[in-house]
C-alpha cells in the first residue's frame, strides 16, 4: 500500500517535471519566433515609410517641376506612373505589416500559454518557515522604508528644482515685453467700457447734432465714417465714392473706446400712427408678427397666377424679408462679391432703383442657409438701414442715396451674422452678438442715431453669437427692449441701454426672436425651453420664470402669440400651440415640411409659410383647424409682410405681391 502511494507520487512528479520542461521549451521557441517576426516588421516599417507617396523625394521634385511647367503632359504621365507605383508598394507594405502583426500575435499568445503553464507547474504551496516578525526585522524594515521615502522626497524636490531652473529660461518676460503697449490700450478701452455704458440722458430734442467725435472723422469726399466702435479685426475701409482702400491706422485689439452722443430726434421721428400703418421692420410694426386687422387673402396660386397681383424677380439672392413704407417696398440681395438694396414700387412691382453697397470690411464666409443677405432691413420712415454678415452697416435715403456707412467689424459668428435691424423712435438698434459668450466681451447691443450713425448708447452683452432680432414692447407699464441669446434673455431700457433684468434660460444657437404675451416676455429655442418671464429687475433666473415648456421648440422661426395662445413652428414641420397662462401644450400638428419663416397672426388666423412656398393658414384657436392652403411657384424662407390687405412674400428668386387686383 505504502509502495503504491510512493510510486504514484513519483509518477506524478515525473509527469510534472516533463510538463514543466516542455512548457519552458515552448516559451523559448515562441519567444525566438516573436523576436524574428518583430525584426521583420521593423524592417518593413522603414520600407513602408519610404514607399509612402507623401515621403517620396523624387515625386515631390516632379511636383515642383510641374508647378513650373503646368502644361508638360509627359511630366504629368511620369508623375501618375510613379504615384501609382509608390501606392502599390505602400499598400503591399501595409498588408505585410498587417499580416505580420497577426503572426506576431500568434507567437505572443503561444508564448503566454507556455509561460502560464510553466508558472502553474512551479506554483509553490504555502509553507511558512519558522521566522516570525521580530522586533529587529520590523524596525529594520521601517527604517529602510523611511530612508527610501526620504530619498524619494529628495528626488521629488530635485525634479521640481530642475523644472524651476528650466522655467527661468521661459518666455514669460518676453511675452510681457511684447504686450506692454498693447495692455495700455486694453486698459483704456476697459475703462471706457465700464458699465453702465448707457449714455447721455436720453431725450434732448433741442440738442443740435454734435460734431463728429475725435477719432471718428468723416472721410473727406464721402459721408462714410470709420466706425468708432471698430472691433478687434484688422480691416480695410473702402471709400465707396473714391474706391480707395485705407487701412485703419492702428487695429485695436480689444474693445475700443466707443464715443457716444446724445439722442437727437430733431431730424426725424416717425409718428405712432405712421409706424403702425406700415411694415417698417422684421415681423411688422411691433416686431412680433401681429396684424390686427385688414382683409387679407386666404387663397392664391403662384403657379397659375390666381390672386397674385405681381411677381418681380430679385436680381441677387437673400433670405431677408420685405419691409414696406407707403408705396415702396425695400429688400436686400447679396452674393459673395456684391450687395444691393432694392426699392420696388408697391403698385406695379417694378424695381424703382437698386443701390449697390460696397464692401467696407472684408467679406466673411457664411453658411448657405444664412446667405450673404440674411438680415431684414429697417425703415424709420425717411431712411433705410441695412446690415450684412461681415458687419457692414449702411443707411440710405428713399432715393437710394447712401447717407452713411460703417463697419462693426467682421463678427465671430458660427453661421454668419443674421440678426435683423430694428427701430425705436429715431434709434437704430443693432444686436451684434458674437463669440462664444461668457466673459469674452465680444457681444454688443448698439443704439445708433438713425440720421448720423453715431452711437447713442451701447451695452456689452455676456452672451454667445445669436441670430434673434430684438423687440421693443410695453410690458406692464414699462417699455422694454427684449433680446434672446445664449444663455440670457435680457431686457433693456430702449432709450438708455440700462439693463432691466436678465434670465438664464436659453442654450444653443439662438435664432427665434422674443415676443410679449399675457404681460410676460416669451423666449424660446430648440434644446432649451419656451420660457415665460415675468418682468422685474436684476437676475430673474430663479424668481421670475412663470413657466417653462419643452414642446415643439422652434430652431429658426420665431413664435407668435395673441394674449391667450402661443404658436410655434419648427424646421421639422411641427406646429405647436401652447397656453400663455399655464405653458401647457394645447395641441400640436405635424406637417411633412419645414418652417423657417416666422408665423404671423392676422386677425383670427395664423399664417405659416413653409420652405416649399406653401402658406398654411390655421385658426388661432384652441383646436387645430386649417382654413387655407396656397402655394407660390417656388420655395420661400423669408417672413411675409402684411400691409394694406396685401401680402408680400419673398420667394427664393422673386418677390410676390398677393391680394385683390
Amino acid at each position, binding site marked *: 500500500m505504502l509502495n503504491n502511494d510512493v510510486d504514484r507520487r513519483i509518477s506524478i512528479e515525473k509527469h510534472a517535471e516533463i510538463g514543466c520542461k516542455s512548457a519552458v521549451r515552448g516559451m523559448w521557441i515562441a519567444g525566438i519566433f516573436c523576436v524574428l517576426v518583430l525584426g521583420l516588421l521593423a524592417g518593413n516599417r522603414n520600407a513602408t515609410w519610404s514607399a509612402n507617396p507623401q515621403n517620396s523625394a523624387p515625386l515631390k521634385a516632379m511636383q515642383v517641376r510641374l508647378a513650373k511647367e503646368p502644361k508638360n503632359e509627359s511630366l504629368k504621365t511620369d508623375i501618375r506612373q510613379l504615384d501609382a507605383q509608390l501606392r502599390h508598394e505602400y499598400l503591399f507594405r501595409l498588408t505585410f505589416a498587417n499580416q505580420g*502583426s497577426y503572426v506576431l500575435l500568434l507567437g505572443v499568445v503561444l508564448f503566454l500559454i507556455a509561460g502560464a503553464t510553466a508558472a502553474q507547474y512551479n506554483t509553490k504551496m504555502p509553507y511558512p518557515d519558522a521566522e*516570525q516578525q521580530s522586533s529587529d*526585522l520590523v524596525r529594520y524594515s*521601517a527604517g529602510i522604508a523611511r530612508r527610501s521615502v526620504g*530619498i524619494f522626497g529628495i528626488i521629488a524636490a530635485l525634479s521640481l528644482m530642475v523644472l524651476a531652473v528650466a*522655467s527661468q529660461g521661459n518666455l*514669460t518676460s518676453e511675452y510681457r515685453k511684447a*504686450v506692454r503697449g498693447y495692455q495700455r490700450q486694453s486698459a483704456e478701452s476697459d475703462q471706457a467700457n465700464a458699465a453702465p455704458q448707457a449714455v447721455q440722458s436720453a431725450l434732448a430734442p433741442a440738442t443740435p447734432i454734435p460734431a463728429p467725435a475725435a477719432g471718428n472723422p468723416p472721410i473727406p469726399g464721402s459721408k462714410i465714417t470709420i466706425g468708432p466702435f471698430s472691433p478687434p*479685426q484688422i480691416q480695410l475701409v473702402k471709400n465707396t465714392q473714391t474706391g480707395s482702400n485705407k487701412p485703419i491706422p492702428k487695429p485695436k485689439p480689444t474693445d475700443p473706446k466707443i464715443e457716444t452722443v446724445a439722442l437727437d430726434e430733431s431730424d426725424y421721428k416717425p409718428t405712432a400712427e405712421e409706424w403702425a400703418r406700415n411694415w417698417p421692420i422684421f415681423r411688422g410694426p411691433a416686431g412680433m408678427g401681429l396684424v390686427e386687422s385688414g382683409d387679407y387673402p386666404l387663397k392664391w396660386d403662384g403657379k397659375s397666377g390666381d390672386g397674385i397681383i405681381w411677381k418681380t424677380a430679385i436680381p441677387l439672392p437673400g433670405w431677408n424679408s420685405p419691409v414696406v413704407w407707403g408705396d415702396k417696398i425695400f429688400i436686400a440681395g447679396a452674393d459673395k462679391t456684391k450687395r444691393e438694396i432694392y426699392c420696388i414700387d408697391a403698385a406695379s412691382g417694378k424695381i424703382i432703383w437698386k443701390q449697390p453697397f460696397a464692401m467696407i470690411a472684408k467679406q466673411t464666409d457664411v453658411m448657405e442657409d444664412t446667405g450673404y443677405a440674411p438680415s431684414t432691413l429697417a425703415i424709420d420712415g425717411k431712411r433705410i438701414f441695412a446690415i450684412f454678415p461681415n458687419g457692414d452697416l449702411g443707411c440710405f435715403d428713399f432715393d437710394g442715396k447712401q447717407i452713411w456707412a460703417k463697419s462693426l467689424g467682421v463678427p465671430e459668428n458660427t453661421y454668419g451674422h443674421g440678426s435683423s435691424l430694428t427701430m425705436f423712435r429715431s434709434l437704430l438698434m443693432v444686436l451684434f452678438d458674437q463669440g462664444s459668450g461668457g466673459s469674452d466681451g465680444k457681444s454688443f447691443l448698439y443704439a445708433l442715431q438713425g440720421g448720423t450713425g453715431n452711437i447713442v448708447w451701447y451695452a456689452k452683452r455676456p452672451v454667445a453669437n445669436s441670430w434673434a432680432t430684438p423687440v421693443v414692447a410695453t410690458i406692464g407699464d414699462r417699455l422694454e427692449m427684449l433680446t434672446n441669446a445664449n444663455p440670457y434673455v435680457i431686457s433693456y431700457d430702449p432709450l438708455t441701454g440700462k439693463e432691466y433684468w436678465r434670465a438664464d434660460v436659453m442654450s444653443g444657437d439662438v435664432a427665434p426672436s422674443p415676443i410679449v404675451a399675457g404681460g410676460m416676455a416669451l423666449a424660446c429655442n430648440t434644446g432649451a425651453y419656451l420660457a415665460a418671464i415675468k418682468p422685474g429687475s436684476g437676475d430673474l433666473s430663479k424668481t421670475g420664470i412663470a413657466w417653462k415648456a419643452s414642446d415643439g421648440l422652434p430652431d429658426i422661426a420665431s413664435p407668435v402669440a395673441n394674449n391667450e395662445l402661443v404658436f410655434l413652428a419648427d424646421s421639422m414641420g411641427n406646429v405647436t400651440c401652447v397656453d400663455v397662462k399655464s405653458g401647457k401644450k394645447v395641441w400640436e400638428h405635424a406637417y411633412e415640411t419645414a418652417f423657417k419663416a416666422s408665423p404671423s397672426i392676422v386677425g383670427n388666423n395664423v399664417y405659416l409659410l413653409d420652405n416649399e412656398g406653401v402658406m398654411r393658414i390655421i385658426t388661432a384657436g384652441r383646436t387645430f383647424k386649417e382654413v387655407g392652403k396656397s402655394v407660390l411657384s417656388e420655395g420661400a424662407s423669408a417672413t411675409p409682410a402684411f400691409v394694406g390687405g396685401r401680402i408680400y412674400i419673398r420667394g427664393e428668386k422673386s418677390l410676390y405681391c398677393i391680394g385683390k387686383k
Partner: protein
Amino acid sequence: MIKHMKSLLFPIYCFLLSIPAYAVQNFPPPDFTTGHKLPVTPTPQPRAEWFAYMDIGVLIAALMLATYFVLWKRSRRAIGGLSIFSLAYFGFYRHGCVCSIGAIQNVAQSIADPNVVLPVVAGAFFLLPLIFALFAGRVFCAAVCPLGAAQDIVLMKPTKVPNWLAQCLGILPWIYLGVAVMYASIGSAYLICRYDPFVAFFRFGGSVPMLVFGGLMLVLSMFVGRAYCRFLCPYGALLRLISPLTKWKVTITPDECVNCRLCEDACPYGEIRYPTPTDGGISRTEGKSRLITLLLLLPVFIGLGAGLGYLASDKLAQVDPAVSLARRVWLEDHHKVKGTTLETDSVRKRDIPKQEVYLQALAVGRKYRHGSLALGGWIGLIIGLKLIGLSIRRRRSDYEADAAGCVACGRCYMSCPVERVRHGDAEAKKILEEYRAK
C-alpha cells in the same frame, strides 16, 4: 478545470487587446482630381440620456453585487466573474468612459470653474465607489473597475515588491492626483484620460506610444499585481483614504484567526499585514522623538514643496495649449525654430494679434503660479505624512488585510483553513484542530 479555463481565457483576452494595433491607416488622396468625393466622416451621435442613467444603474448593481461577493459570499470565483463582466461592459462596451478615475477631473474642474457643469453621470461615477468604500471597502477595485479587472486577469506569476519600494511607489498616486487636479481645474488637460494605459485597448484604437505603454503595463501586471492600481491610480489614492473608515472591513478569515500563517503569501499585492511584535517593533522613546521631529518638519516640507512648485510653474504651464501656442509663435517669429504648425498658421490667417496670444498665455501662467504653489505644497505634505505614517507604532495580533490597500480580490479567502472548513474541507478541519490544540 478552472486552471485550464484560465489558460484559454488569457490568450483570448490578449487577442482582443491586440486588435487595436491594426488601427486606421492614413493614406494620402491621389494627386489628381478624379471626381471621387471623399466620404464625410460621420460624427458619432451622443449617447442617449437614458444610456447615461443606465450606466449609473449598472454601476450601482455591480457595486452591490461586488459587496455581496466580497463580504457575504466570500467567493473569489464570483468576484472574478464580475470582473470579467465589468471589463466587458465598462471597458470594451463603454470604451472606458465614463470612469471613476477620470471623473476626478470633471469634479475638480466643475469646482474650480463655475461655468463648467458637472455631468450627473460623472458625479455619480465619482461618488458612488467612495460611498460604497465607506461601508464595504474597495469593492469597486475588486470587481467593478475595468482597469483593475484588466490587470487582475493577466496576473500570472506575482512577484513581491520590497516594502521600501512599495512605500516609495505608493506616493506616486497622490502626486498624480495632485497634478491631474491642477491641470483639470485650470482647464488645460485631462491628464488621467490622456495617459490612461488601457483606454486605447478598450476603444480598439490609439496612438502607438499609448498602445506600447498599455502593453507594457499589462506585461508588468503579469508579474507585479495591479501595477497601475497600486502605483499610479489617483482614484485608488482617494479610496485608500476612505477605506480605513469602512464599516464592514474585508477579512482574511471569516471567523477567528488561528495564526497558522498559511495566508502570509496569499496576497499578490502585498496587502496582508502580519501580527507585530509585542513592542510594536519600535522603542517608545525613539518612536516618540522621531514622530515629534517629523511633525515639526511637516510645515517645512510643505513650504519647501510650495516654493519649488511656484518656481516651476512656467514649465508646468507648457502643457496648456494657449501657453504652448504662444511659445511656438514667439519661437517662429524669432527664427528659433524652422517651419510653422497648423495652430500658428491659424493665428496668422485669422489676423489674431500676437499680443492676444501672449496675453492669453500670461493669463494662464498666472493660474499656474497658484496651481503649482498648491501642487508643490501637496507633494511636500504627502511625503511628510508618509514619513510620519512610517514612524507610528502599530499593533496587530492577527493576520489582517490592510484596510487601505486591500482591493478585496478575494484571493486570500481559500488560504485560510477556517474558510475552507466553512466550505466542508475535511483536511483543513484537521489542520485547524491541530493549530487550535497548540
